């Protein structure tokens, strides 16, 4: 997976960062913060490897 950007998105109902908007292989996707989701797992793998940073959510 070629992940070129990632930013947390705040759920308007829970106020939590429940998803990550990421551009993966050129497509803008909403990746849930949910281990075993393959996109989330890859994002976290790249974050731990220091090759990707997840930007903070936009302030409402």
């Amino acid at each position, binding site marked *: 997976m070629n992940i070129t950007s990632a930013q947390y*998105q705040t*759920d308007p109902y*829970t106020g939590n960062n429940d998803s990550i908007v990421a551009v993966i292989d050129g*497509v803008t996707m*909403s990746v*849930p913060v*949910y281990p*075993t*989701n393959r996109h989330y797992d890859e994002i976290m793998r790249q974050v731990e490897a220091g090759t990707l940073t997840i930007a903070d959510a936009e302030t409402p």
Partner: protein
Amino acid sequence: MSTLKTASLQHPDASSNTIHLSASGNVGIGTNSPTAKLDLGGNNVAGISSINSGQVSGRRNLIINGDMQIAQRNSSVAGISSSSTYQVVDRMFIRNSGAGTFTNSHSTDNPGYGLKRSIKFECTTADSSLAADDFAYMGYKMEGFDAVKLLKGETGAGYATLSFWVKSSETGTAVVRFVDIPNNRSQGHAYTINAADTWEKKTITISMVDGSNKVNYDNTSQFVLVFWLAVSTNRTSGTLQSSWTNNLTADEAVSQTVNIVNTTSSYINFTGLQFEVGDTATSFEHISYGEQLALCQRYYEKSYNDTVVPGSVDVSGWSGGDKPSGTAGRFRIEFKTTKRGNPTVTTYHHVTGTSGQMYTSTNGSVSTAISGVGMNRVQIAMNGGALSGNAEVGCQWTADSEI
């Protein structure tokens, strides 16, 4: 040893023959004119607890979309020089790490027997001299809820049998690797592609007896089948382990000589993948297109019609709702099939095809905000809050919970 020659057997108290033997070698029970090797004359069979050491009936094939019918993502993807994802055919994971460049397609080439589609890999940039760590494979990842049926490491463990059709421009030896993910155990088996450009059916039976090394009963990847397409010395320098052994990279594909990126236009097709409990490969288990699609939708679902590639400009079947003035338009989507896990959701503006956006009838293109993602539903909303004016809002979408 003498031979009892008779055409029929009859109990002394019976009034008619019980077993009839025909000159052509057929055996009839309840019929004097058997038309098959064993003809029961329409009578019932009772007391069968197993066929080929596997279940008597129902779903035998543990591989979803083994007949390659369903390809929701695309019909063909060219230029695959690096891949670690699903490209074309549902449930078939494509990995390429440095092994040339190929096109992956949903092919109409087939061996017959009711199989109408296959998955094809065709080289477009050759790599006949692979570097030591180069490799490519097609993988099938089985979640634990399904993999436990193999009984690996369980009480009652016996055998499982893989059968499949293959056709390739390349002859030689290829390898299928069976991987137990949680226990880091695997085994590999070689098969031979005897003739170029010819469909051949292959069968591999493996033991599921492996001490107490069982897979987990959950929704994560627990058992993987690896069909090597091309591989080099880092994975062929060890020993081909034909029984369960701790994973060792050097053992992964020993004996593989087939390289589908050997020359430009080298290719390989697969179809009719069936993995079943028991020591015998039974005929491919055909199910309806609708059933196969529903099974695939546990892992990937889209709003588009079956043959429309996500990201296409297409208004058929888009999801949406109405946005009253002064609000942020939003709507809920109920998935057709419960997902394996919370899915990645991608929206596409159905008028422009742009990902991460939705259509509004009064506010132009608006980025989307996904919330409340679950295995059964999701909410899609306009990102950025309320906008003035009544509007119709909507988009096409995909939900991906592949392993």
